[in-house]
């Protein structure tokens, strides 16, 4: 399992969320506990109905939870839930009527950040993710992978401390998805952000994560949680590493897919 540090950036303890209908209770998130140090990339993996998206929305402050504690921020790093969360969804959710540059400025605008510096940051970040020629294009002129890169840049422009990603590459084809995984690792290394990454891809979770949290469904609960001791920076070669196979087998086993 994972060692507990004294003062983690994020700490979840027995977080539980239950939806109630008139007849029955439905456990959406069941007793999830884990710590995240600053700068980690934690993968939450599990089948649909395991509560991974709900957990992400609890972290984002969009849903309340019923019991347990969620704390973000620590002694060394203050955390403001309004300013310090960036979100990326399965769909890029770019605004059709805005150019890519104006799209990635949306959150900075809403936060009321000075637009001059934000625009400079946006330009640099777009260049960083290979969208250097796309600043003045409209979303429909970009491929799905490029749109999702823009969505990641939109989350990065306001310079949040935590980025929450909900199956961000789930709608992309397999090859683009591999490429985006490498891209994400590069962006993560350069930006040093803490990232929580929800996926149903077991290989993807092990490949990306410093830690993997395995959630299972019916009822929703935390099935496993481990650190991934694979070297950084990671390349596709990692996937042939014997430990990579061990980790993925471990997750398959926990999800009853042996």
């Amino acid at each position, binding site marked *: 399992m994972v060692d507990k540090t004294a003062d983690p950036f994020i700490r979840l303890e027995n977080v539980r969320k239950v939806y109630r209908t008139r007849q029955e209770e439905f456990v959406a998130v069941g007793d999830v506990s884990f710590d995240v140090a600053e700068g980690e990339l934690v993968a939450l993996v599990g089948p649909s109905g395991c509560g991974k998206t709900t957990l992400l*929305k609890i972290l*984002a*402050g*969009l849903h309340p939870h019923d019991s347990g504690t969620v704390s973000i921020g620590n002694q060394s790093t203050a955390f403001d*839930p*309004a*300013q310090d*969360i960036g*979100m990326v*969804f*399965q*769909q890029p*959710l770019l*605004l*059709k*009527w*805005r*150019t890519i540059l*104006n799209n990635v400025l*949306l*959150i900075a*605008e*809403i*936060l009321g950040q000075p637009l001059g510096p934000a625009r400079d940051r946006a330009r640099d970040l777009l260049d960083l993710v290979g969208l250097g020629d796309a600043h003045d*294009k*409209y*979303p*429909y*002129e970009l491929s799905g992978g490029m749109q999702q890169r823009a969505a990641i840049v939109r989350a990065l422009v*306001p310079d949040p401390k935590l980025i*929450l990603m909900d199956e961000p590459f789930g709608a992309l084809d397999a090859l683009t998805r591999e490429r985006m995984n490498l891209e994400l690792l590069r962006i993560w290394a350069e930006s040093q952000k803490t990232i929580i990454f929800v996926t149903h891809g077991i290989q993807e979770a092990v490949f990306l994560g410093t830690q993997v949290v395995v959630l299972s469904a019916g009822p929703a609960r935390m099935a496993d949680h481990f650190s991934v001791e694979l070297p950084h920076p990671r390349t596709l070669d990692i996937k042939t590493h014997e430990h990579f196979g061990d980790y993925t087998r471990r997750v398959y086993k926990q999800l009853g897919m042996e």
Partner: protein
Amino acid sequence: MIKGVGGWQGGDTANTVRRIGLGVVVHLLLLLLWYLAVELGEIPKFILPSPLDTVATLADAHYRWGYNSWVTIQEIFGGYFLAVGVGVLLALLFSWSKTIEAGVMPLLLSFNMIPKVALGPLIIVWFSYGVMPNIIIAFSIAFFPIVLTTARGLREVDPDLLDLVRSVRGSKWQTFTKIQLPGALPYIFSGMKVAAVLAVAGAIVGEFLGSDSGLGYVMLQVQVTLDTAAMFMAVLLISLIGVALYALVLLLEHWLVVRDARVQ
């Protein structure tokens, strides 16, 4: 809102010219067919006047084409833009308050079921003859589709997009100005296109019901004398006004809505 990059650029230009050209040619062909049918078919003038007879009525001062067209233009455009303004405002109100929508929408539906032609005599009792009652009739027919499409456009927002704004504690006003309203614009335009046709019909119905000027009034006047050529001319002018209104809406849409966002 920003102008689209597409539309009339690059490879599209030749295509657009060809499409417009084809449309013009078909119009001219119909005109020729009409001319030949009258000339060769020996159809009586009071059934089908030739295009030349129709255009010739323009020279006859007693129809007062200029004045009567101007009256009809005021009725159509007045009723139409009133409908756009009131319709969009009402839909905005609905998107701000579910209570207002739940209360007022059923009433609007009931009102919309009233045949506007049936309201005509009443409107004339209330407002007498003139431009004003016909503006009101055009407005009452045109405004409903605008309310419906605008309200729908304001509702059609991806829930994840709302979460994105909520996650950074964006205000309702920011959601509205940055996401809902520009997102609803294509829907507003699709309602405006439907409404343009209805406004023309509304104004003319108003003139039929009771008026002392306008192109619809001219048609009723010349009906008694079987002056079919003048009736054709009136219909032609009414259609031209309608086409001009529609073209104006298309032009506005072209300026304001990015191509990909347009509702086809």
